[in-house]
């Protein structure tokens, strides 16, 4: 049962969302041997499959458009902190990626004359966002890429948790992990490694994440010696579903409703309020995510929240026929949950949704560790301090392709050689066990961390709260200890919790430490003790792990182009 598995490949990709699968396709098409692995099932975990909303690209199908106009909106939303080189790659290569998906029959919604339908999302200056009906964008993107991966017979392994990147002589040369289903230790030798594990929204009590979104990639990167940037910027999606309890639907589902039908955001007194925060919505949907999140939480703080602690979202002014036309069978799924939008509002509140920070990369998507690449949400910089709606799937497709090409080229050059001893510590850890039943409930520990992050490291932050969060994280690290519980074996959730918590605590610490240092408010990072933005903080904070401790450096010049290294 516990025999060790050795695998060998040119390019190893960790994570099978849109970024990982795009990378796999690109690397394979350059004749690299590719292995794509995921802690969950292939193409079914992560954020992509959950995305019910829209994908931004300057296609010009709806109205004339240009990548420069998309870039201008992206930089504006990023509040002066975008890495412009990465943002430009996203905007310039976005249209090609969307057309490629169309050729692979993803099924973007179309006008009768064949042009793709594009809607206007908050923060965009014109209709730019494509989608797949009904609320089906993410599943369609996932399915389409998965079909391409399968068609190429790319080797893929699900239920495989990667626990550490193996580094030899300063270069990435593989990874170590374990099989979730049978506990076997796995060592993978690779000429290049791509981290495509997505974000860290699972760190928060209320989130729109899959189970495998606990920030694995940031922790894997840090332990391998890679640098992270902008870790303090966690995006909260302002109108996550709150009440009544709704099953079988993603909590971020109200976004497409607002794109198509506007909808009114009302406080507990059933009055509109967003205009008081500087953005007159007038039954449209224009407030950016950071502004809307701020406005909603301030209303709740002032005692003007809805019964469940959010605000109301109302479509009562929209005729039922129109609701049915826009959302078809989704209206029936709502009815099964006891929701009739024509008759009453639902309650919504901000929910952790996306991470702007992440691995610092060059334009070829290589991290500061040679041979270690990154793609998708796990990359930091492209979206600055606040991501523009619709950029997440676009960056997954575009960055995934770029990282796949770079990694395949590196593999062709030979990559780093691996030595058995460089994997020894990582292999010892996945094979280790205390032998005993765990002294601590690590599932409960994860819930405790999620509460601390929600209460102290949410959209509003103070030095006092952030310092308290750091102490609590230190206490949880001590409780976790250095040895996983039990012994390796068949589907042992306690061991998976332990390895998840190990990564989650390191990712959380990097968020909190960065947030404590940034003494200003900007985009998604709102400090109640430093409410204004400061031009001297128009810089990136760079996080690294040195001798087991996090270190934070400030990028040397304001608005430095971090990708230009």
């Amino acid at each position, binding site marked *: 049962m516990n*025999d*060790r*598995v*050795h*695998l*060998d490949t040119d390019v190893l990709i960790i994570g099978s969302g849109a970024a990982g699968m795009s990378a796999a396709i690109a690397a394979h098409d350059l004749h690299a041997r590719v292995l794509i692995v995921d802690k*969950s*099932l*292939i193409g*079914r*975990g992560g954020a992509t*499959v*959950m995305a*019910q909303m829209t994908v931004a690209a300057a296609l010009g199908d709806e109205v004339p458009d240009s990548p420069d106009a998309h870039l201008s909106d992206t930089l504006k939303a990023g509040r002066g902190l975008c890495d412009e080189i990465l943002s430009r790659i996203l905007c310039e290569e976005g249209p090609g990626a969307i057309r490629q998906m169309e050729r692979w029959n993803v099924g973007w919604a179309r006008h009768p004359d064949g042009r793709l339908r594009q809607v206007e999302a908050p923060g965009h200056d014109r209709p730019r966002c494509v989608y797949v009906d009904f609320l089906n964008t*993410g*599943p369609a993107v996932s399915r389409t890429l998965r079909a391409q991966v399968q068609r190429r017979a790319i080797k*893929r*392994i*699900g*239920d*495989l948790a990667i626990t550490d990147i193996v580094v030899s002589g300063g270069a990435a040369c593989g990874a170590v992990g374990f*099989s979730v*289903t*049978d506990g*076997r230790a*796995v060592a993978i030798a690779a000429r290049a490694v791509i981290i495509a594990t997505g974000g860290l929204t699972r760190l928060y009590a209320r989130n729109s*994440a*899959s*189970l*495998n979104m606990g920030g694995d990639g940031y922790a894997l990167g840090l332990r391998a010696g890679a640098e992270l940037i902008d870790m303090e910027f966690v995006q909260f999606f302002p109108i996550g579903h709150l009440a*009544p*309890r*709704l*099953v*079988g*639907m*993603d*909590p971020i589902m109200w976004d497409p409703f607002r794109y198509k039908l506007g909808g009114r955001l009302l406080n507990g007194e059933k009055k509109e309020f967003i205009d008081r925060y500087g953005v007159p919505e007038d039954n449209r949907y224009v407030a950016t995510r950071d502004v809307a999140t701020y406005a909603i939480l301030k209303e709740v703080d002032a005692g003007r929240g809805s019964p469940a602690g959010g605000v109301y979202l109302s479509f009562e002014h929209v005729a039922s026929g129109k609701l049915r036309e826009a959302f078809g069978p989704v209206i029936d799924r709502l009815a099964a*949950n*006891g929701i009739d939008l024509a008759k009453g509002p639902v309650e919504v509140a901000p929910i952790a949704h996306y991470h702007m920070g992440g691995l610092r990369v060059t334009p070829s998507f290589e991290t500061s560790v040679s041979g270690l690449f990154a793609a998708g949400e796990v990359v930091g910089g492209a979206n600055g301090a606040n991501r523009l709606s619709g950029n997440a799937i676009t960056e997954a497709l575009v960055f995934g392709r770029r990282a796949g090409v770079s990694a395949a080229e590196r593999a062709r050059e030979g990559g780093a050689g691996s030595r058995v001893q460089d994997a020894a510590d990582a292999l010892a850890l996945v094979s280790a066990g205390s032998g005993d*039943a*765990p002294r601590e*409930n*690590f*599932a*409960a520990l994860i*819930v405790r961390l999620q509460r601390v992050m929600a209460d102290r490291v949410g959209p509003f932050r103070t030095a006092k709260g952030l310092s308290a969060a750091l102490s609590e994280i230190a206490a949880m690290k001590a409780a976790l200890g250095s040895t996983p519980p039990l012994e390796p074996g*068949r*589907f*042992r*959730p*306690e061991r998976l*919790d332990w390895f998840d918590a190990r990564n989650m605590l390191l990712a959380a610490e990097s968020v909190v430490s960065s947030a404590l240092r940034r003494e200003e408010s900007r985009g998604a990072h709102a400090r109640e003790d430093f409410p204004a933005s400061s031009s001297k903080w128009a810089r990136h904070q760079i996080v690294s792990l040195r001798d087991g401790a996090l270190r934070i450096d400030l990028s040397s010049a304001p608005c430095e182009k971090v990708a230009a290294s």
Partner: protein
Amino acid sequence: MKRAVLIVRRGAPHDVASWSRFEVSYEPGESVLDGLRRIRVQDDASLAFRYSCINANACKECMILVDGEVRYACTARLEEREMRLEPLPNKPHLRDLATEIAPPDERLGRGDNG
């Protein structure tokens, strides 16, 4: 708060079949998966079941038998009665409610060894 009683099949394939009985408090509308996740945090972290997307019914990973019927744990609702939960009968059993559901060519094979 209402209370459901979940009778859950436990153990690995070669173990003698056993059952655990958990009482779970819930708000009306909550799912069986909500209940299972609460049990892991409050009562028994060793309880094994599969899920990924939690609520969206997008991953299709949480399929189990609820009172003998194939259901998604994330859309089956908790009810104020005894509910009997078992692993899928037509998939290789791993532990408790967890089964091997990955397609054969997307698994770590027995032959994967170098």
